[in-house]
């Protein structure tokens, strides 16, 4: 009390207190353990119990891993060498890795093509995921889908070129007419794109050479983890924009658009994905004119995309609802029109709020791609359950195969989750 007048009630501060650094936290392993692991009787029991369980798992599974075989030709050979000891038979992975990754019909001389497409995916995704990178890289991102299609499916290069050309024409028409009326630009663009594809399809057939640079691979021959990746990446990247459109449509003032979006979302959410996949596989064929072939993978992509976009739309709707009305009003009062207000003000904030939900759905979607195994497509799980477990050499190798599948999926899903947390930290702009 040196700087106060202790004897009087009235108080005037004469010297101001200098700021001092906060007290150093009392660190130390013992203190940490006492606070976090053994703070009371129940916690201590729980801690010891958990430690015991962890120890048991490690002790029991360690020999299985340590004794693992890596280069035997069959399960029988593994058993012979192990002679009753516990031990894994990882040889199935080294022997069948190509089938697990690419399916059993993809020509083995062409494995480099999906491999290359996979590596290029990182370059294409980078500017979308890390917006500090130069925007010019987005050009490659725009080319990538067509390039990847050509690499994976092979065949004539005219197919992806015409597809890309259709998008360009559609966009040009849209940009031309959009200034007069958004609807005219939108539908004109779509019509122009389809016209281009239709004409291009006929021209392409005429000029396509018999011998192509890359050997054509049939959709039926795609399989393994490649198929999961292909479906996962395509469907996530398609369902995000579609989900945004659906969410905005559901908020629309136009009753017709709103109605369509609500019915679509509610219908899709009320139907199991498996049902949609069966529809894609069998039922859709009845609706198509006889003789048309409509690629199975494309059908599956459409179904999974519709499925997840309905969920994403609902998550984004939550984000939109969480924004204060004042944000819309401020955008309006500054004279921004609807597309500008949405793109610059509303969606960036709504999407930021929705990131955890969207990632949740993306991860779920990626894992749900394994459901295609029930419509006899040989994705990673389909490969394991079908050709590999059915083979005489590897009949009975469950743990090794499914652990491997789990590991692959875990790596991807954990990566997505880590990225989303990083993104949330990046987008944090002060309190509020």
């Amino acid at each position, binding site marked *: 009390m040196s700087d106060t007048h202790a004897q009087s009630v009235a108080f005037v501060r004469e010297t101001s207190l200098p700021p001092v650094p906060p007290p150093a936290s009392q660190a130390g392993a013992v203190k940490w353990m006492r606070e976090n692991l053994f703070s009371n009787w129940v916690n201590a029991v729980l801690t010891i119990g958990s430690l015991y369980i962890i120890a048991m798992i490690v002790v029991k599974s360690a020999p299985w891993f340590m004794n693992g075989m890596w280069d035997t030709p069959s399960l029988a050979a593994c058993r012979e060498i192990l002679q009753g000891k516990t031990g894994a038979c990882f040889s199935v992975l080294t022997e069948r890795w190509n089938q697990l990754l690419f399916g059993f019909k993809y020509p083995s001389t062409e494995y480099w093509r999906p491999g290359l497409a996979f590596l290029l995916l990182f370059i294409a995704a980078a500017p979308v995921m890390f917006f500090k990178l130069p925007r010019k890289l987005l050009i490659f991102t725009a080319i990538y889908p067509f390039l990847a299609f050509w690499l994976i499916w092979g065949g004539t290069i005219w197919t992806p070129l015409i597809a890309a050309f259709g998008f360009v024409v559609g966009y040009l028409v849209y940009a031309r007419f959009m200034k007069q009326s958004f609807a005219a630009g939108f539908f004109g663009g779509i019509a122009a794109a389809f016209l281009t594809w239709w004409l291009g399809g006929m021209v392409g057939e005429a000029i396509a050479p018999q011998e192509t640079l890359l050997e054509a691979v049939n959709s039926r021959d795609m399989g393994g983890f490649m198929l999961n990746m292909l479906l996962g990446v395509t469907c996530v990247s398609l369902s995000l924009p579609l989900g945004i459109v659906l969410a905005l449509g559901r908020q629309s003032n136009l009753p017709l658009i709103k109605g369509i979006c609500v019915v679509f979302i509610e219908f899709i959410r009320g139907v199991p994905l498996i049902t949609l996949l069966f529809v894609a596989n069998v039922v859709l064929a009845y609706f198509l004119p006889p003789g048309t072939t409509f690629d199975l993978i494309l059908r599956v992509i459409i179904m999974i995309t519709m499925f997840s976009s309905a969920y994403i739309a609902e998550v984004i709707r939550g984000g939109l609802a969480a924004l204060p009305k*004042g944000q819309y009003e401020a955008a309006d*009062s500054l*004279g*921004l029109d609807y597309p500008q207000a949405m793109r610059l003000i509303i969606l960036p*904030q709504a999407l*930021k709020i929705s990131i955890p939900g969207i990632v949740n759905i993306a991860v779920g979607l990626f894992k749900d791609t394994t459901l295609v195994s029930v419509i006899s497509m040989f994705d990673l799980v389909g490969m394991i359950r079908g050709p590999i477990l059915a083979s005489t050499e590897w009949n009975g190798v469950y743990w090794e195969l499914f652990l491997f599948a789990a590991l692959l999926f875990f790596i991807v899903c954990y990566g997505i989750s880590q990225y989303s947390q990083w993104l949330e930290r990046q987008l944090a*702009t*002060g309190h509020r």
Partner: protein
Amino acid sequence: MAEAQKMEVSDEIAISIRKMNKWYGSFHVLRDIDLTVNRGERIVICGPSGSGKSTLIRCINALEEHQKGTIEVDGITLSSDIKNVDKIRREVGMCFQHFNLFPHLSILENCTLAPIWVRKTPKKEAEEIAMHFLEKVKIPEQADKYPGQLSGGQQQRVAIARSLCMRPRIMLFDEPTSALDPEMIAEVLDTMIELAEEGMTMLCVTHEMGFARKVANRVIFMDQGQIVEQNEPEEFFNNPKSERTQLFLSQILGH
């Protein structure tokens, strides 16, 4: 007299509202509003909570739709035609009680956004304009921060600067100081006074009577969706005619 420092008011009409009515459902919020504002005029609107003050000024830039009567801003009639609405919003700036800054954009981006996208000003030029107005509201050093990092008073000044960057001819204020701590009110009012002295046409909903006395040409008192009384500030405060005005003034000045 306070008149001395008041800028001249031109005969040109900035806003003209005739027999305007608005309903929320069946609730008659605004009844037969008649109001003409000349260019350079500064009008303070006051009245009890729920009397329709916000609704009135929000009708002027079409944040709310009116159902009967006409509103003409800068000679442009406000109708359901979107083109007209956009035209009017470009000429009319607005400040809100809760600032409504864009939290995901920096202060500078908040200020340059509308000029770049609506007025198609080149980015460089828009940034210069923004810095000019940020200096004017005395916070150029905060340009790179985000709204969440600023105090309420600073945020409201940024909101004023953001509106000014669109070079509006009319400014609307909806209780710009009522969400602020007392010591921040003065800094926002100073900014508004400065703006008034430069001859900006202003409509302010506020209960800051000191501000009204100092800059207003006219004070309007609203109650139950109607304009009950309007007069010059001296007369209005010293000699209110209607009973409701007297009651209201005694309530807010009484303590």
